[in-house]
Protein backbone atom coordinates (compact mmCIF):
# COMPACT_ATOMS: atom_id res chain seq x y z
CA UNK A 1 0.00 0.00 0.00
CA UNK A 2 1.30 3.46 -0.85
CA UNK A 3 0.08 6.85 0.33
CA UNK A 4 -2.21 8.33 -2.29
CA UNK A 5 -2.41 11.92 -3.41
CA UNK A 6 -5.75 13.62 -2.87
CA UNK A 7 -7.80 14.45 -5.95
CA UNK A 8 -7.69 17.99 -7.36
CA UNK A 9 -10.76 20.11 -6.72
CA UNK A 10 -12.63 21.50 -9.68
CA UNK A 11 -12.81 25.33 -9.44
CA UNK A 12 -16.53 25.72 -8.95
CA UNK A 13 -18.66 22.99 -7.44
CA UNK A 14 -22.07 24.62 -7.02
CA UNK A 15 -23.87 27.97 -7.30
CA UNK A 16 -24.99 29.81 -4.17
CA UNK A 17 -28.46 31.01 -5.16
CA UNK A 18 -30.91 32.93 -2.98
CA UNK A 19 -33.96 30.86 -2.08
CA UNK A 20 -36.92 31.11 -4.46
CA UNK A 21 -40.40 31.62 -2.97
CA UNK A 22 -41.53 28.15 -3.90
CA UNK A 23 -40.24 24.70 -4.89
CA UNK A 24 -41.76 21.36 -5.79
CA UNK A 25 -39.64 19.74 -3.10
CA UNK A 26 -37.71 21.17 -0.16
CA UNK A 27 -35.15 18.94 1.53
CA UNK A 28 -34.00 20.03 5.00
CA UNK A 29 -30.34 19.29 5.72
CA UNK A 30 -27.45 19.32 3.25
CA UNK A 31 -25.58 16.36 4.68
CA UNK A 32 -24.77 13.39 2.47
CA UNK A 33 -28.34 12.12 2.73
CA UNK A 34 -29.98 15.41 1.77
CA UNK A 35 -27.60 15.87 -1.16
CA UNK A 36 -28.01 12.29 -2.39
CA UNK A 37 -31.79 12.66 -2.15
CA UNK A 38 -31.70 15.82 -4.27
CA UNK A 39 -29.38 14.17 -6.78
CA UNK A 40 -31.64 11.12 -7.23
CA UNK A 41 -34.83 13.25 -7.25
CA UNK A 42 -33.37 14.96 -10.30
CA UNK A 43 -31.67 11.97 -11.90
CA UNK A 44 -34.17 9.15 -11.26
CA UNK A 45 -37.43 11.10 -11.13
CA UNK A 46 -36.82 14.23 -13.23
CA UNK A 47 -37.78 16.49 -10.32
CA UNK A 48 -35.38 19.43 -10.47
CA UNK A 49 -37.35 22.29 -8.91
CA UNK A 50 -35.77 21.33 -5.59
CA UNK A 51 -34.03 23.21 -2.78
CA UNK A 52 -31.78 21.71 -0.15
CA UNK A 53 -31.79 23.99 2.91
CA UNK A 54 -28.83 23.85 5.29
CA UNK A 55 -28.60 25.82 8.52
CA UNK A 56 -24.80 25.71 8.59
CA UNK A 57 -22.51 24.98 5.70
CA UNK A 58 -22.88 22.22 3.16
CA UNK A 59 -22.01 18.83 4.65
CA UNK A 60 -20.66 20.35 7.87
CA UNK A 61 -22.73 18.08 10.14
CA UNK A 62 -22.16 14.36 10.64
CA UNK A 63 -21.10 14.11 7.03
CA UNK A 64 -17.89 15.93 7.98
CA UNK A 65 -17.47 14.10 11.29
CA UNK A 66 -17.82 10.40 10.57
CA UNK A 67 -15.10 7.78 10.39
CA UNK A 68 -16.06 6.98 6.76
CA UNK A 69 -16.54 3.24 7.13
CA UNK A 70 -18.62 1.63 4.38
CA UNK A 71 -19.85 -1.99 4.66
CA UNK A 72 -23.03 -3.98 4.17
CA UNK A 73 -22.58 -6.92 6.56
CA UNK A 74 -25.81 -6.40 8.53
CA UNK A 75 -27.78 -9.31 9.96
CA UNK A 76 -31.40 -9.02 8.84
CA UNK A 77 -32.69 -9.34 5.28
CA UNK A 78 -34.15 -5.81 5.26
CA UNK A 79 -30.84 -4.25 6.33
CA UNK A 80 -28.67 -6.41 4.09
CA UNK A 81 -30.84 -5.36 1.15
CA UNK A 82 -30.59 -1.62 1.71
CA UNK A 83 -26.92 -1.50 2.77
CA UNK A 84 -25.89 -3.82 -0.07
CA UNK A 85 -27.81 -1.62 -2.53
CA UNK A 86 -25.75 1.28 -1.14
CA UNK A 87 -22.49 -0.64 -1.53
CA UNK A 88 -23.30 -1.48 -5.15
CA UNK A 89 -24.07 2.19 -5.81
CA UNK A 90 -20.78 3.21 -4.12
CA UNK A 91 -18.94 0.88 -6.50
CA UNK A 92 -20.20 2.87 -9.52
CA UNK A 93 -20.51 6.33 -8.02
CA UNK A 94 -17.01 7.78 -8.59
CA UNK A 95 -17.39 7.15 -12.32
CA UNK A 96 -21.03 8.23 -12.43
CA UNK A 97 -20.28 11.50 -10.62
CA UNK A 98 -16.92 11.86 -12.40
CA UNK A 99 -15.22 12.60 -9.09
CA UNK A 100 -12.57 10.48 -7.46
CA UNK A 101 -13.50 10.42 -3.79
CA UNK A 102 -11.01 7.66 -3.00
CA UNK A 103 -13.49 4.88 -2.35
CA UNK A 104 -11.08 2.20 -1.20
CA UNK A 105 -12.38 -1.36 -0.84
CA UNK A 106 -9.79 -2.49 1.66
CA UNK A 107 -12.14 -4.74 3.63
CA UNK A 108 -13.46 -4.67 7.18
CA UNK A 109 -12.78 -7.01 10.09
CA UNK A 110 -15.36 -7.17 12.87
CA UNK A 111 -13.53 -8.79 15.77
CA UNK A 112 -14.93 -11.36 18.17
CA UNK A 113 -13.60 -11.43 21.75
CA UNK A 114 -16.09 -13.70 23.51
CA UNK A 115 -17.79 -16.97 22.70
CA UNK A 116 -21.01 -15.05 22.20
CA UNK A 117 -19.24 -12.68 19.75
CA UNK A 118 -17.98 -15.74 17.83
CA UNK A 119 -21.46 -17.22 17.58
CA UNK A 120 -22.98 -13.89 16.55
CA UNK A 121 -20.22 -13.40 13.96
CA UNK A 122 -20.57 -16.84 12.41
CA UNK A 123 -24.32 -16.45 12.29
CA UNK A 124 -23.96 -13.08 10.58
CA UNK A 125 -21.50 -14.46 8.01
CA UNK A 126 -24.04 -17.16 7.11
CA UNK A 127 -26.88 -14.64 6.97
CA UNK A 128 -24.78 -12.33 4.79
CA UNK A 129 -23.95 -15.10 2.33
CA UNK A 130 -27.60 -16.08 2.02
CA UNK A 131 -28.25 -12.44 1.11
CA UNK A 132 -25.48 -12.30 -1.50
CA UNK A 133 -23.22 -10.16 0.70
CA UNK A 134 -19.54 -11.14 0.63
CA UNK A 135 -18.54 -12.41 4.06
CA UNK A 136 -16.01 -14.79 5.58
CA UNK A 137 -15.31 -16.10 9.04
CA UNK A 138 -11.60 -15.87 9.88
CA UNK A 139 -9.71 -17.63 12.67
CA UNK A 140 -7.14 -15.57 14.60
CA UNK A 141 -4.18 -16.62 12.40
CA UNK A 142 -6.14 -15.66 9.29
CA UNK A 143 -7.07 -12.35 10.91
CA UNK A 144 -3.37 -11.69 11.43
CA UNK A 145 -2.71 -12.29 7.74
CA UNK A 146 -5.26 -9.64 6.76
CA UNK A 147 -4.02 -7.16 9.37
CA UNK A 148 -0.47 -8.00 10.52
CA UNK A 149 -0.25 -5.14 13.05
CA UNK A 150 -3.19 -6.51 15.02
CA UNK A 151 -2.29 -8.27 18.25
CA UNK A 152 -3.97 -11.70 18.06
CA UNK A 153 -2.03 -13.21 20.96
CA UNK A 154 -4.11 -15.16 23.47
CA UNK A 155 -2.55 -13.19 26.32
CA UNK A 156 -4.49 -9.94 25.96
CA UNK A 157 -7.34 -9.12 28.33
CA UNK A 158 -9.91 -9.76 25.60
CA UNK A 159 -8.14 -11.98 23.05
CA UNK A 160 -9.17 -11.94 19.40
CA UNK A 161 -11.07 -15.22 18.95
CA UNK A 162 -11.80 -14.60 15.27
CA UNK A 163 -13.45 -12.06 13.03
CA UNK A 164 -15.96 -11.59 10.28
CA UNK A 165 -14.37 -10.21 7.12
CA UNK A 166 -16.12 -8.36 4.31
CA UNK A 167 -13.56 -7.79 1.53
CA UNK A 168 -15.72 -5.32 -0.46
CA UNK A 169 -16.11 -2.97 2.51
CA UNK A 170 -13.89 0.08 2.86
CA UNK A 171 -13.62 3.83 3.31
CA UNK A 172 -14.13 6.96 1.18
CA UNK A 173 -13.26 10.66 1.56
CA UNK A 174 -16.52 11.90 3.06
CA UNK A 175 -16.14 15.59 2.17
CA UNK A 176 -15.40 14.72 -1.43
CA UNK A 177 -18.45 12.47 -1.60
CA UNK A 178 -20.61 15.40 -0.49
CA UNK A 179 -18.99 17.78 -2.97
CA UNK A 180 -19.36 15.25 -5.78
CA UNK A 181 -23.09 14.85 -5.09
CA UNK A 182 -23.53 18.61 -4.61
CA UNK A 183 -21.89 19.43 -7.93
CA UNK A 184 -24.11 17.03 -9.88
CA UNK A 185 -27.30 18.05 -8.06
CA UNK A 186 -26.47 21.68 -8.77
CA UNK A 187 -25.83 20.95 -12.45
CA UNK A 188 -29.22 19.27 -12.65
CA UNK A 189 -30.87 22.47 -11.36
CA UNK A 190 -31.15 21.86 -7.60
CA UNK A 191 -30.69 24.98 -5.41
CA UNK A 192 -28.27 24.30 -2.55
CA UNK A 193 -28.90 26.99 0.05
CA UNK A 194 -26.50 27.30 2.97
CA UNK A 195 -27.01 29.43 6.10
CA UNK A 196 -30.73 28.75 5.87
CA UNK A 197 -32.26 27.29 9.03
CA UNK A 198 -35.73 25.82 9.00
CA UNK A 199 -37.51 27.21 12.07
CA UNK A 200 -41.07 26.01 11.47
CA UNK A 201 -43.55 24.52 9.04
CA UNK A 202 -46.44 25.96 7.05
CA UNK A 203 -49.52 23.79 7.10
CA UNK A 204 -52.82 23.75 5.30
CA UNK A 205 -54.96 21.54 7.50
CA UNK A 206 -53.09 18.25 7.85
CA UNK A 207 -50.79 18.93 4.91
CA UNK A 208 -47.40 20.63 4.99
CA UNK A 209 -47.13 23.37 2.34
CA UNK A 210 -43.80 24.98 3.13
CA UNK A 211 -41.25 25.97 5.72
CA UNK A 212 -40.31 29.07 7.70
CA UNK A 213 -36.62 29.88 7.64
CA UNK A 214 -34.26 32.60 8.80
CA UNK A 215 -34.19 33.61 5.12
CA UNK A 216 -37.94 33.88 4.75
CA UNK A 217 -40.91 31.70 4.02
CA UNK A 218 -40.49 29.02 1.34
CA UNK A 219 -43.47 27.20 -0.14
CA UNK A 220 -43.10 23.56 -1.05
CA UNK A 221 -45.20 20.82 -2.57
CA UNK A 222 -43.41 18.29 -0.42
CA UNK A 223 -40.87 18.49 2.38
CA UNK A 224 -38.25 15.86 3.21
CA UNK A 225 -36.34 15.95 6.50
CA UNK A 226 -32.73 14.72 6.45
CA UNK A 227 -31.49 16.47 9.57
CA UNK A 228 -29.66 13.60 11.34
CA UNK A 229 -29.10 14.49 15.04
CA UNK A 230 -31.78 17.20 14.98
CA UNK A 231 -34.55 15.20 13.32
CA UNK A 232 -36.79 14.95 16.40
CA UNK A 233 -36.40 18.63 17.32
CA UNK A 234 -37.38 19.55 13.77
CA UNK A 235 -40.21 17.03 13.39
CA UNK A 236 -41.72 18.19 16.66
CA UNK A 237 -42.18 21.65 15.10
CA UNK A 238 -44.33 19.96 12.47
CA UNK A 239 -46.29 18.17 15.19
CA UNK A 240 -44.65 14.79 14.58
CA UNK A 241 -43.12 12.75 17.41
CA UNK A 242 -40.21 10.47 16.46
CA UNK A 243 -38.87 7.55 18.51
CA UNK A 244 -35.28 8.79 18.39
CA UNK A 245 -32.79 9.90 21.01
CA UNK A 246 -29.89 12.20 20.16
CA UNK A 247 -26.48 11.24 21.52
CA UNK A 248 -22.96 12.62 21.17
CA UNK A 249 -20.65 10.32 19.18
CA UNK A 250 -16.94 11.05 19.18
CA UNK A 251 -14.03 10.29 16.89
CA UNK A 252 -10.39 11.26 16.71
CA UNK A 253 -7.34 11.18 14.46
CA UNK A 254 -3.63 10.74 15.08
CA UNK A 255 -0.84 12.59 13.36
CA UNK A 256 0.23 11.25 9.95
CA UNK A 257 2.01 7.92 9.71
CA UNK A 258 3.49 5.76 7.00
CA UNK A 259 0.93 3.31 5.63
CA UNK A 260 0.79 0.59 8.31
CA UNK A 261 -2.88 -0.36 8.56
CA UNK A 262 -4.18 -2.14 5.44
CA UNK A 263 -7.87 -2.64 6.30
CA UNK A 264 -10.62 -1.46 8.66
CA UNK A 265 -10.85 -3.06 12.11
CA UNK A 266 -13.92 -2.78 14.31
CA UNK A 267 -14.46 -4.22 17.74
CA UNK A 268 -17.87 -4.15 19.30
CA UNK A 269 -16.70 -5.65 22.54
CA UNK A 270 -13.67 -3.59 23.56
CA UNK A 271 -15.09 -0.79 21.50
CA UNK A 272 -12.83 0.90 19.10
CA UNK A 273 -12.76 1.04 15.32
CA UNK A 274 -9.68 1.98 13.35
CA UNK A 275 -8.66 2.63 9.79
CA UNK A 276 -5.87 4.63 8.22
CA UNK A 277 -6.90 7.56 6.06
CA UNK A 278 -5.34 8.05 2.64
CA UNK A 279 -3.16 10.88 3.95
CA UNK A 280 -1.90 8.68 6.80
CA UNK A 281 -3.87 9.61 9.93
CA UNK A 282 -5.20 6.79 12.06
CA UNK A 283 -8.94 7.43 12.26
CA UNK A 284 -10.63 6.04 15.36
CA UNK A 285 -14.17 5.94 16.62
CA UNK A 286 -15.87 4.79 19.81
CA UNK A 287 -19.35 4.17 21.18
CA UNK A 288 -21.92 6.88 21.88
CA UNK A 289 -21.97 8.75 25.14
CA UNK A 290 -24.74 7.18 27.19
CA UNK A 291 -26.70 10.38 27.80
CA UNK A 292 -28.72 12.51 25.39
CA UNK A 293 -26.93 15.61 24.17
CA UNK A 294 -26.71 18.21 21.45
CA UNK A 295 -23.41 19.81 22.54
CA UNK A 296 -21.27 18.27 19.79
CA UNK A 297 -18.75 17.16 22.36
CA UNK A 298 -18.68 14.11 24.56
CA UNK A 299 -17.00 12.73 27.63
CA UNK A 300 -13.28 12.23 27.95
CA UNK A 301 -13.57 8.80 29.58
CA UNK A 302 -15.05 7.46 26.33
CA UNK A 303 -11.89 8.54 24.51
CA UNK A 304 -9.74 7.04 27.28
CA UNK A 305 -11.47 3.67 26.97
CA UNK A 306 -11.25 3.72 23.20
CA UNK A 307 -7.51 4.51 23.37
CA UNK A 308 -6.91 1.73 25.90
CA UNK A 309 -8.60 -0.73 23.55
CA UNK A 310 -6.68 0.55 20.52
CA UNK A 311 -3.32 0.24 22.24
CA UNK A 312 -4.06 -3.29 23.40
CA UNK A 313 -5.16 -4.39 19.93
CA UNK A 314 -2.45 -2.43 18.09
CA UNK A 315 0.66 -2.23 20.32
CA UNK A 316 2.35 -0.39 17.43
CA UNK A 317 0.07 2.62 18.11
CA UNK A 318 1.21 3.06 21.72
CA UNK A 319 3.30 6.12 20.95
CA UNK A 320 1.09 7.71 18.33
CA UNK A 321 -0.18 11.18 19.24
CA UNK A 322 -3.80 12.20 19.11
CA UNK A 323 -4.12 15.27 16.94
CA UNK A 324 -7.82 16.12 17.05
CA UNK A 325 -10.99 14.84 18.69
CA UNK A 326 -14.53 15.94 17.87
CA UNK A 327 -18.13 14.92 18.33
CA UNK A 328 -21.24 14.71 16.20
CA UNK A 329 -24.87 14.30 17.24
CA UNK A 330 -26.48 11.05 16.11
CA UNK A 331 -30.17 10.11 16.31
CA UNK A 332 -30.60 6.60 17.64
CA UNK A 333 -33.78 4.51 17.33
CA UNK A 334 -34.87 1.71 19.69
CA UNK A 335 -33.91 -1.01 17.13
CA UNK A 336 -30.76 0.70 15.79
CA UNK A 337 -32.31 0.88 12.31
CA UNK A 338 -33.27 4.00 10.36
CA UNK A 339 -36.72 5.44 9.70
CA UNK A 340 -37.39 6.34 6.05
CA UNK A 341 -40.91 7.14 4.99
CA UNK A 342 -44.04 9.19 5.38
CA UNK A 343 -45.24 10.84 8.59
CA UNK A 344 -48.74 11.49 9.95
CA UNK A 345 -48.51 14.94 8.27
CA UNK A 346 -49.31 14.71 4.53
CA UNK A 347 -46.48 15.86 2.29
CA UNK A 348 -43.91 15.55 5.08
CA UNK A 349 -41.37 12.73 4.80
CA UNK A 350 -38.59 11.75 7.14
CA UNK A 351 -35.18 10.15 6.73
CA UNK A 352 -33.63 9.78 10.16
CA UNK A 353 -32.48 7.44 12.88
CA UNK A 354 -29.33 6.33 11.03
CA UNK A 355 -27.58 6.76 14.35
CA UNK A 356 -23.92 5.89 14.23
CA UNK A 357 -23.93 4.24 10.80
CA UNK A 358 -25.57 6.32 8.08
CA UNK A 359 -22.55 7.36 6.02
CA UNK A 360 -22.26 3.94 4.39
CA UNK A 361 -25.92 4.16 3.43
CA UNK A 362 -25.69 7.60 1.80
CA UNK A 363 -26.46 6.56 -1.81
CA UNK A 364 -29.23 4.12 -0.85
CA UNK A 365 -30.73 6.54 1.67
CA UNK A 366 -30.88 9.14 -1.11
CA UNK A 367 -32.17 6.64 -3.67
CA UNK A 368 -35.03 5.34 -1.51
CA UNK A 369 -35.90 8.68 0.09
CA UNK A 370 -36.07 10.34 -3.35
CA UNK A 371 -38.40 7.57 -4.49
CA UNK A 372 -40.62 8.03 -1.43
CA UNK A 373 -40.76 11.82 -1.74
CA UNK A 374 -41.30 11.68 -5.53
CA UNK A 375 -44.04 9.04 -5.56
CA UNK A 376 -45.51 9.34 -2.07
CA UNK A 377 -44.93 5.59 -1.72
CA UNK A 378 -42.06 3.64 -0.17
CA UNK A 379 -39.51 1.92 -2.40
CA UNK A 380 -39.42 -1.85 -1.68
CA UNK A 381 -36.03 -1.29 -0.01
CA UNK A 382 -37.30 1.25 2.54
CA UNK A 383 -40.82 -0.09 3.06
CA UNK A 384 -39.75 -2.14 6.13
CA UNK A 385 -38.14 0.97 7.64
CA UNK A 386 -41.44 2.84 8.10
CA UNK A 387 -42.34 4.70 11.27
CA UNK A 388 -45.25 2.37 12.00
CA UNK A 389 -42.95 -0.57 12.78
CA UNK A 390 -42.81 0.71 16.35
CA UNK A 391 -46.55 0.17 16.58
CA UNK A 392 -46.81 -3.09 14.63
CA UNK A 393 -43.77 -4.51 16.40
CA UNK A 394 -42.00 -5.46 13.13
CA UNK A 395 -38.68 -4.14 14.42
CA UNK A 396 -35.37 -4.64 12.59
CA UNK A 397 -33.06 -5.17 15.53
CA UNK A 398 -29.54 -4.39 14.33
CA UNK A 399 -27.86 -3.58 17.63
CA UNK A 400 -25.38 -6.40 17.02
CA UNK A 401 -24.48 -5.59 13.43
CA UNK A 402 -24.54 -1.84 14.07
CA UNK A 403 -21.20 -2.52 15.78
CA UNK A 404 -21.28 0.61 17.92
CA UNK A 405 -22.37 0.56 21.53
CA UNK A 406 -25.63 2.41 22.07
Amino acid at each position, binding site marked *: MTAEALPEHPDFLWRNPDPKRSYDVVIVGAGGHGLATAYYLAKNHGITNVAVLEKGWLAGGNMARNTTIIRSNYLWDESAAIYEHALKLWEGLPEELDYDFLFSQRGVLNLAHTLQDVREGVRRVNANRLNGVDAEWLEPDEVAKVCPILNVSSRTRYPVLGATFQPRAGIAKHDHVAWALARRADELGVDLIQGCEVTGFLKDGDRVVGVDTNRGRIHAGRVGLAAAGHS*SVLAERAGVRL*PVQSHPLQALVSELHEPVHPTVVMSNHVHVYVSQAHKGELVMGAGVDSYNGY*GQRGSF*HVIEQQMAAAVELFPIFARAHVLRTWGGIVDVTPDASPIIGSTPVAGLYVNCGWGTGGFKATPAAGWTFAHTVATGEPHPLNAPFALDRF*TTGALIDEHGAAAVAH
Partner: protein
Amino acid sequence: MLLITCPWCGPRNETEYHYGGQAHVPYPESPADLTDEQWAEFVFYRDNPKGPFAERWMHSIGCRRWFNVLRDTATHEVLTSYRLDEPRPGGNR
Protein backbone atom coordinates in the same frame (compact mmCIF):
# COMPACT_ATOMS: atom_id res chain seq x y z
CA MET B 1 -16.97 14.69 31.94
CA LEU B 2 -20.14 15.53 33.84
CA LEU B 3 -20.04 16.27 37.57
CA ILE B 4 -23.25 14.83 38.98
CA THR B 5 -24.48 15.16 42.56
CA CYS B 6 -25.92 12.00 44.09
CA PRO B 7 -28.57 13.07 46.65
CA TRP B 8 -26.98 10.68 49.17
CA CYS B 9 -23.23 10.75 48.40
CA GLY B 10 -22.63 14.23 46.95
CA PRO B 11 -20.82 15.30 43.78
CA ARG B 12 -19.02 12.54 41.86
CA ASN B 13 -17.69 12.05 38.34
CA GLU B 14 -20.01 10.80 35.61
CA THR B 15 -18.03 7.54 35.44
CA GLU B 16 -19.51 6.48 38.82
CA TYR B 17 -23.01 6.50 37.36
CA HIS B 18 -25.20 4.61 34.93
CA TYR B 19 -27.61 6.52 32.68
CA GLY B 20 -31.27 5.50 32.72
CA GLY B 21 -33.02 7.72 30.18
CA GLN B 22 -36.03 9.98 30.65
CA ALA B 23 -37.47 10.37 34.16
CA HIS B 24 -41.15 10.54 35.13
CA VAL B 25 -42.41 7.93 32.66
CA PRO B 26 -45.12 6.16 34.68
CA TYR B 27 -46.09 2.56 33.97
CA PRO B 28 -49.61 2.52 32.42
CA GLU B 29 -52.34 2.44 35.05
CA SER B 30 -54.48 -0.12 33.23
CA PRO B 31 -52.17 -1.93 30.80
CA ALA B 32 -54.90 -4.24 29.47
CA ASP B 33 -56.80 -1.26 28.07
CA LEU B 34 -53.93 0.20 26.02
CA THR B 35 -54.11 0.35 22.22
CA ASP B 36 -51.10 -0.65 20.13
CA GLU B 37 -50.39 3.05 19.59
CA GLN B 38 -50.39 3.69 23.35
CA TRP B 39 -48.11 0.71 23.96
CA ALA B 40 -45.72 1.98 21.29
CA GLU B 41 -45.77 5.36 22.98
CA PHE B 42 -44.96 3.86 26.38
CA VAL B 43 -42.27 1.44 25.16
CA PHE B 44 -40.48 3.31 22.36
CA TYR B 45 -41.23 7.05 22.46
CA ARG B 46 -39.31 9.35 24.79
CA ASP B 47 -38.81 13.10 24.84
CA ASN B 48 -35.60 14.30 23.19
CA PRO B 49 -35.44 18.01 23.98
CA LYS B 50 -32.61 20.38 23.14
CA GLY B 51 -32.56 22.08 26.54
CA PRO B 52 -33.53 21.08 30.10
CA PHE B 53 -34.28 17.34 30.40
CA ALA B 54 -35.32 15.34 33.47
CA GLU B 55 -33.50 12.01 33.41
CA ARG B 56 -32.65 9.08 35.65
CA TRP B 57 -29.16 8.15 36.81
CA MET B 58 -27.98 5.36 39.10
CA HIS B 59 -24.98 5.70 41.37
CA SER B 60 -23.70 2.32 40.25
CA ILE B 61 -20.28 2.31 41.94
CA GLY B 62 -21.48 4.24 44.99
CA CYS B 63 -24.71 3.80 46.93
CA ARG B 64 -26.39 2.03 43.95
CA ARG B 65 -29.52 4.14 44.26
CA TRP B 66 -31.53 5.68 41.41
CA PHE B 67 -32.31 9.39 41.40
CA ASN B 68 -33.27 12.11 38.93
CA VAL B 69 -31.16 14.82 37.33
CA LEU B 70 -32.27 17.94 35.52
CA ARG B 71 -29.66 18.59 32.82
CA ASP B 72 -29.46 20.91 29.83
CA THR B 73 -28.77 18.71 26.80
CA ALA B 74 -27.52 21.66 24.73
CA THR B 75 -24.98 23.04 27.23
CA HIS B 76 -24.30 19.84 29.28
CA GLU B 77 -24.99 21.88 32.44
CA VAL B 78 -26.25 19.73 35.31
CA LEU B 79 -28.95 22.00 36.77
CA THR B 80 -29.97 19.98 39.83
CA SER B 81 -30.52 16.46 41.11
CA TYR B 82 -33.37 15.16 43.25
CA ARG B 83 -34.86 11.99 44.73
CA LEU B 84 -37.34 9.82 42.83
CA ASP B 85 -40.15 10.76 45.20
CA GLU B 86 -39.62 14.48 44.60
CA PRO B 87 -41.35 16.36 41.77
CA ARG B 88 -39.38 17.83 38.88
CA PRO B 89 -38.06 21.20 40.11
CA GLY B 90 -39.70 24.14 38.37
CA GLY B 91 -42.66 22.12 37.10
CA ASN B 92 -42.98 19.91 34.09
CA ARG B 93 -41.54 21.97 31.24
